[in-house]
């Protein structure tokens, strides 16, 4: 039995998922949970779009760790910059890079070294996750909003691939250290965000198998986002439809609409229940966490706070209890 730490207590959290499933929102919610517990938390986005920082209250992308709330900081990583920073360290003559020709040659070199940029980005995350000041870690927790699945896995694959394929050199030594941290179930967890619909579930199962069998990364939660739970009985809806005939026209119009929304919700609830069942059956032993669809006019800071409380409750108790509360 390998040594592990309860998921919430780990230091390095990766949040992975298909585009459009709410991955960034979940990463933000997780960072809020950790910060609320009094842990100094860094939320990292792996490009410079600024979505995660803005969601957590920053004005835009953050080139250096920027405080947004008590115990909560944000950082936007730029792979190109990380690589240049690293190569700047190993090539003492930086002015060489300034000539156009040299920088173009350098561009080719970077392109020719597959995954170097991804490796350096992960290396930067490793640096933040292990950084110490005055003998103690700077961050108690680091949450990473990884790019959409395919691309996100490329990043997580890099340290291992680099360790095996790069010749002996600084990069290989670096990759070995990074890979060791990523694979350590005491410090790291990779969480998958999905929806209980066909394509997202299929992709999640593929990703999960990759993580377990090929990448050997510590499995975190599978977070099923935007669940619909209300299933209205067909007989009830028929009775309502029949009863609406007796009503004055404007009331009948309202009831028709109530009926439409009821079957819309029931439809999604049925789809969600079906694919959640499939997901759970295929992922025996993996902690599956459900989050309800939130009906709001606008997804604001208060909605995020609500979602992070729901997530906190969901990861603290068996998922069945949550589903029951929402049914």
């Amino acid at each position: 039995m390998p040594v592990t730490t309860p998921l919430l207590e780990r230091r390095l959290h990766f949040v992975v998922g298909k585009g459009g499933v709410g991955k960034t929102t979940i990463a933000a919610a997780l960072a809020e949970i950790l910060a609320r517990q009094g842990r100094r938390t860094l939320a990292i986005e792996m490009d410079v779009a600024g979505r995660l920082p803005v969601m957590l209250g920053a004005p835009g992308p953050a080139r250096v760790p920027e405080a947004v709330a008590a115990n909560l900081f944000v950082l936007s990583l730029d792979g190109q910059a990380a690589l240049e920073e690293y190569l700047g360290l190993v090539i003492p003559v930086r002015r060489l890079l300034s000539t156009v020709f040299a920088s173009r040659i350098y561009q080719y070199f970077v392109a020719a070294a597959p995954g170097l940029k991804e490796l350096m980005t992960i290396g930067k995350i490793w640096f933040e996750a292990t950084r110490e000041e005055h003998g103690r870690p700077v961050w108690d927790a680091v949450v990473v909003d990884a790019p959409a699945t395919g691309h996100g896995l490329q990043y997580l694959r890099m340290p291992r691939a680099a360790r095996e394929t790069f010749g002996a050199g600084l990069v290989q030594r670096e990759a070995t250290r990074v890979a060791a941290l990523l694979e350590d179930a005491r410090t790291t967890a990779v969480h998958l965000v999905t929806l209980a619909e066909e394509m997202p579930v299929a992709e999640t199962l593929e990703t999960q198998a990759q993580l377990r069998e090929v990448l050997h990364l510590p499995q975190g939660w599978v977070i099923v986002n935007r669940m619909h739970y209300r299933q209205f009985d067909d007989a009830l809806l028929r009775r309502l439809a029949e009863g609406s005939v007796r009503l004055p026209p404007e009331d009948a119009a309202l009831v028709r609409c109530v009926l439409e929304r009821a079957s819309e919700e029931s439809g999604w609830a049925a789809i969600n229940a079906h694919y959640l069942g499939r997901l759970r059956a295929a992922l025996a032993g993996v902690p599956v966490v459900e989050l309800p669809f939130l009906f709001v006019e606008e997804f604001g800071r208060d909605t995020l706070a609500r979602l992070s409380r729901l997530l906190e409750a969901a990861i603290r108790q068996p998922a069945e209890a949550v589903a029951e509360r929402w049914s």
Partner: protein
Amino acid sequence: MTLAELVAAHRVVISAGSGGVGKTTVAASIALWGALQGRRTVVMTIDPARRLASSLDVGALGAEPREIPATAFAAAGLHPPGTLSAMMLDQKGAWDALVERHAPAEAVPRILRNPFYQHLSQTFAGSQEYMAIEQLCVLVESQAWDLIVVDTPPTRHALDFLEAPRRLGDFLDRSIVKWFIKPYFSAGWSALRAVNRSVGFLLRRLEQATGVSALIEISDFFNNMSGLFENFQARVDRAYQVLRGPETAFVLVTSPEEQVLGDAEYLTAKLGELRIPLAGVVMNRVHREFRPATRRAEKRAEVGPEDVDEVVRVVAGALGDAMAEARELARNFADYQALARGESLRIEQFRTELPRRIPLVTVPNYARDVHDLAALAAMHAALFGAPPPAAA
């Protein structure tokens, strides 16, 4: 102009937008409409939308257009006077075909294994997007198609798709490529050092630091592929001719979620900068808002916590009591009203920022996965305002 007129007036329709908004489905539905209008239609998808492929009854989608059999249409109650073919972008296959066309036969296997080439063709930012456009040019030049619908790669910002040819063109710029072509590299390091001592030094440091010996690979690749790069800029220019041409229409697919709309606004602005006009917008997965017809009932559109009681009263009246069920139904209604109200405000806001001539259609959030011909045809009411005549 309506979306139907827009599609009728163009030969190429490109559906763009961020991932997870139903782009592939909208592209397939537009293509089906084309076939039902009597056009010889092809839809190229980038996403391996397996279930869509199987519902189109074309087996696994391949790099060659495959026609959807009449039996599949008939099973869905459709009898299109035109044809519909589907194909999937095979990025690796398309690049490999380029190599086979341009490299000497004996060098082909070596180039295909070359790590620099593999990176360029598979993971270089924009190489998938570039190949999609290259494939589009091939389809445009062929006389076989009246309507070509392209589902763009799922990039965070669909913009990558438009900038890819230029970026790849810059990357493969001849003035730099020639440095990698004989005689400098084939003679090895000494020749390079003679050309430029400091560059040689820089590269050696890079190789030592990273453990990557890439220069030989770069050199080998460019030496064997020089034919390709000779006319690469011309290909890039041709790609932009097609993208900006009068027969091409860009249709933005988006959804009324805040984050997705943010991306859509950004894309719209950037399209303008690239001189590629946006032709239409499909707002997908929209929740309908209840808008009562009479003044008296108008208050109910604003169903806040206090108005739910009113809805409960009406529903309970229709059910003949059953208060608990009525309350649950009313709460569900109020939830969807809140969602729909937020969406319609955002859509209105988005609409005001668009030029008026650009059609914007909304497609309701179907409580089902859209994955067969009948479901694709059902979208036509929302997209084109009328059921296709052949399906009637």
